[in-house]
């Protein structure tokens, strides 16, 4: 029975968390940019 | 998204205190609610059980999981004071479970009749066929959208 290796398991979880955090930061940056250019709405 | 659109149903929080506490006296018999073997193609099942008497008391439980009737190389699972346990990722084949109640000072009751959970994963050909069909439909969808998008951008399929 082939199992996913531990390294894959670890990387998957850590990358997903970092990625999610970056998504939040990107959203903040986007809203700041829209705010500056007055293009929010 | 809707996938599964599952709603949770109420269950007890996991209990299970330190060994010393618990109801005194000989622990009662316990039996699984499923009498017949449980068949699953998905490798998971919810086990639930009932205590024969003094059922309102805070018994803890111990479950053994094994491949052989004798439970020689059994894995131990501790559901604490819960009266149900979700098991998943079970290997193909017949998985046997048995349970007993645990009372004060670690006093244990008798093991229940074993419950068989028969795991029979979908066969390789069905899985690979449907996976392959999925790949094809996926590629066709992506190609259709992207090709359409190119025509759209180039103005060939004008709106």
């Amino acid at each position, binding site marked *: 029975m*082939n*199992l*996913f290796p*531990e390294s894959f*398991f*670890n990387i*998957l*979880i*850590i990358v*997903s*968390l970092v990625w*999610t*955090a970056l998504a*939040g930061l*990107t*959203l903040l940056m986007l809203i700041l*940019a829209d705010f500056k250019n007055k293009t*929010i*709405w | *998204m*809707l*996938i*599964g*659109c*599952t*709603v*949770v*149903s109420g*269950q*007890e*929080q*996991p209990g299970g205190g330190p060994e010393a506490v618990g109801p005194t006296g000989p622990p009662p018999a316990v039996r699984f609610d499923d009498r017949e073997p449980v068949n699953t*193609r998905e*490798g*998971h099942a*919810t086990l639930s059980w009932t205590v024969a008497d003094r059922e309102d008391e805070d018994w803890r439980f111990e479950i053994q999981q094994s491949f052989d009737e004798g439970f020689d190389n059994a*894995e131990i699972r501790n*559901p604490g004071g819960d009266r*149900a*346990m*979700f098991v*998943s*990722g*079970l290997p193909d084949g017949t998985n046997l479970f048995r349970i007993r109640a645990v009372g004060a000072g670690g006093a244990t009751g008798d093991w229940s009749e074993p419950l068989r959970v028969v795991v029979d994963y979908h066969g390789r050909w*069905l*899985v690979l066929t449907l*996976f392959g*069909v*999925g*790949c094809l*439909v996926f590629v066709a*969808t992506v190609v*259709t*959208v992207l090709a*359409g*998008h190119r*025509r*759209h951008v180039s103005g060939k*399929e004008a*709106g």
Partner: protein
Amino acid sequence: MDEFRTSVLTQQTGFLLLGIFGVLWIALGIYWGRKAKDTEGFMLAGRNVGLALGAATAMATWVTSNTIMLAPKFALQMGIWGMLAYATASFGLFLFAPMASRIRRLLPKGYTSGDFIRLRYGRVAWGLFLLISFFYSMAWLVSMAMAGGILLNALSGMRYEYGMTVILFVCVLYTLFGGLYAVIGTDFIQSLIILAGVVLVGVVVITRVDLGEIHATLAAKQPGLIQVFMPVALLSFFNNMFFGFGEIFHNNVWWSRAFAMREGVPQKAFLLSGLFWFPIPIAAGFIGLCAAPLGINVPDADMVGPLVASKVLGTAGAVVVFIVVFCSLASSIDSLLAATSDLIAQDVYRKMLNPWAEEAQMRRMATRIIVGLGVVTWLICLPRISDLLSVLFFAGPLVGSAIWPVIAGIYWRRANPAGAVAAMVLGSTVGLIAYFQIGWYTASLVGATVSMVVVGLTTLLWPREFDWKKLNEAEAAS
């Protein structure tokens, strides 16, 4: 009878959190609602939404209570493949990005996905499409309101009826006051809270557990979960993806967003929302894999997420889960209320019943429909019939069968009405058969496949030229 005997938070905390966030959403709804001067403002936020709000609203709407609750359950049931399968739901957002830009061009004055189907395929396909769409939308609304009530009950011991009612009431109220402005504005804040909450819980869990040990314990006790060839998970992989495609491509929730965004924004916004959404099922889901290795008994797979979070993080964890769940529920319920009421107001009221409806009448109608939808959902949810939910699973093959009529309708000049109708009927039927014969995890896959074959064949065999200009109703009328 199913009430939790013990819950992590007290009822007071539960009501306090509901109160704080409920008041916040309603206040913001009133504040943003002042921007909605006419129907177009109310229904489509003035067709001028920017990139940040556009991306956030698409992401937040796609994060439902199910993403937060079901991702850990998928992980627990199907392991690593289960999480990956769930993450593929984001592909629908990626593919909708180019579609959104075409939709904007084809229907510059469009309001709903129903508008498109009616103009493109005629009344029969339109009726069928509306049926599928209403069934799906109600299924989604009911499942979330029910899930909300049950979850809040589980987390704080608050009565199911109270939690369910408060959530629905708050969402109806702020959608009513603010229309799509309120929906999109609150979605942005809810997105940030959801992302922060998921990261917070995930990071605390990995600092408290040893991932290596989790892997080792899984290998010994639940090998199926980290197996490379996991049959059920592989079956559900494309099924999930197509369920997501069907949901996004057909539903007015997404179309109304495409119409609401400023020129040039939709494509980027949907791409970004897919990128933002992709990691969430893994980040929120992996804690489900940690249950058994951490010695946490899971009496009920549906509860694994909150169970692990509160076990590892204590009360603080439960508070975070409570807030994240409330945000994800609100961000989806509000969108559904708004988009479904648009669909009824525009497609049923204006197009079928009262074609000469004036501006003020439309606005009045839209608000009445939002209240009506809220009341109907509330009535269906009140008795807490969990068997009802198995009926809702049927939405999978139905929406799967709508994928190809929509794509072909947008991109293929020769796709014809008979093909679209046949694809929806046959796709749904065969998909439902697969549901019962093989399992739920194949129904959307089969529905989508049949619908593809039917649309492809009918377009090849009986091509019918379509004049794209007919889609621009304003222009066609003048």
